């Protein structure tokens, strides 16, 4: 206890936050994996996982144990450094955005005044991990997957930033807490519906999910960038993908859906997290439904859509927002 009292309280706070967030990431991946398979099942009118535990609720735990126990196979002639680095690079940066997300008024690890920029830069590193993994795998499918991931990310990063910019023009701040605070009266989804739609579309594309899952298009590229990965290498990519989805949905909640705001609860400063999570998981549910509804787009369609529709519309949206704000 002596040592703890000598440590700066802010450090202890950050360590606690990091531990909670890392354990939450694993929990989220398990829940999302289960939800994904269940919803996929019911959309196709079959029950989904049913065998392990009540209605297959422990399926993902069992899968996780299997993945941990599997051998980490390193194929011949791969770039060993890159090959091993890629899963770590995919997993580590996705934890950091959660440190600045305001889950409720007082549940936020750190309120950076450039929080939004921090999140955008951290989520972009994920693409580099895909490129490193795809390049290091010494496999044409992985290479193609990585190349597609980069092209897709460059195309969709622009509309995502432009749609965020519309919000920033209205709030004059990059701090997520202040952006949520500004939505006390009215959620920005009502003021900025086009930006919201553009953000969701580009967000799905940014997380490489169907219908924009070209980097891992299983019918064309086996498994894309993670073709050669097994065991924990694969599951770190998997964790990275689901955490990225969570981050995208959280940012959408913060920017457009009023964050922790909702009907008043006792201890609202803390229990706002209930509304936050409801909104986030509603968006994640929506993203899963999108995945099981639409077929994968072709690559030229993907880029055409970004450059011909999303970018002009988001630019026009910013222009209109700027004029209205100035008036």
């Amino acid at each position, binding site marked *: 206890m002596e040592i703890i009292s000598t440590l700066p309280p802010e450090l202890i706070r950050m360590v606690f936050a990091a531990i909670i967030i890392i354990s939450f990431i694993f929990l989220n991946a398990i829940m999302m994996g289960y939800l994904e398979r269940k919803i996929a099942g019911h959309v196709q*009118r*079959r029950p989904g996982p049913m065998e392990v535990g009540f209605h297959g609720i422990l399926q993902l735990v069992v899968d996780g144990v299997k993945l941990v126990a599997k051998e980490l196979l390193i194929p011949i002639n791969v770039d060993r450094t890159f090959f091993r680095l890629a899963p770590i690079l995919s997993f580590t940066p996705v934890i950091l955005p959660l440190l600045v997300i305001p889950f409720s008024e007082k549940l936020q690890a750190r309120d950076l005044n450039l929080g939004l920029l921090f999140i955008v830069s951290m989520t972009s590193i994920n693409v580099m991990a895909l490129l490193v993994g795809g390049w290091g795998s010494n496999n044409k499918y992985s290479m193609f997957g990585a190349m597609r991931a980069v092209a897709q990310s460059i195309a969709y990063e622009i509309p995502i930033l432009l749609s965020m910019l519309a919000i920033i023009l209205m709030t004059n701040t990059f701090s997520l807490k202040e952006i949520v605070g500004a939505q006390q009266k009215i959620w920005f989804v009502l003021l900025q519906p086009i930006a919201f739609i553009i953000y969701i579309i580009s967000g799905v594309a940014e997380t490489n999910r169907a219908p924009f899952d070209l980097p891992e298009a299983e019918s064309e590229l086996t498994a894309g960038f993670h073709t050669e990965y097994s065991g924990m290498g694969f599951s770190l990519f998997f964790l990275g993908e689901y955490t990225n989805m969570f981050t995208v949905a959280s940012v959408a909640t913060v920017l457009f859906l009023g964050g922790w705001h909702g009907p008043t609860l006792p201890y609202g400063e803390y229990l706002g997290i209930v509304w936050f999570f409801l909104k986030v998981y509603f968006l994640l549910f929506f993203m899963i439904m999108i995945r099981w509804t639409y077929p994968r787009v072709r690559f030229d369609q993907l880029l055409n859509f970004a450059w011909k529709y999303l970018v002009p519309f988001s630019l026009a949206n910013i222009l209109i927002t700027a004029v209205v704000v100035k008036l």
Partner: protein
Amino acid sequence: MKRYFSDLFVGGKSLVDGLVVTTKALFQPIVTVQYPREEIDITPNFRGHIDLILDPEKNTFRCIACGMCERSCPSECIQVKGKKVEGKKKKTLALFKLDFTKCSLCGTCVEICPTQALEFSNEYNLAAFSKEAFHYDILKRLEERII
């Protein structure tokens, strides 16, 4: 320019239509059957291996051990034997065996039977570890039903 906006409108509408279809499917009951736990009723037209018909009046088989089925079988998988019983003029059935590994379910035996003593069973849970498990003793199966 007109094409640009009509594409956007038509495409967006079709996306919404698609979501409506899957959302409806999400709340409809599931149609797959969890096979070993639940089973569906088999259609009466299902042609499993042959079985002797249990005559409800006589409470036994109608077979007269004539051996027509054995002779007509193209795969020679049926084996029928009759025996003399004292006090009866005709032979009675003593052995009726089917080698189901050879049977092609053609149904010739069922059609040719002069006393309509044969039928197709509804058995479809057929899995075993040895070939011998499919050498059925049809007469024994009937005797089990009599009791």
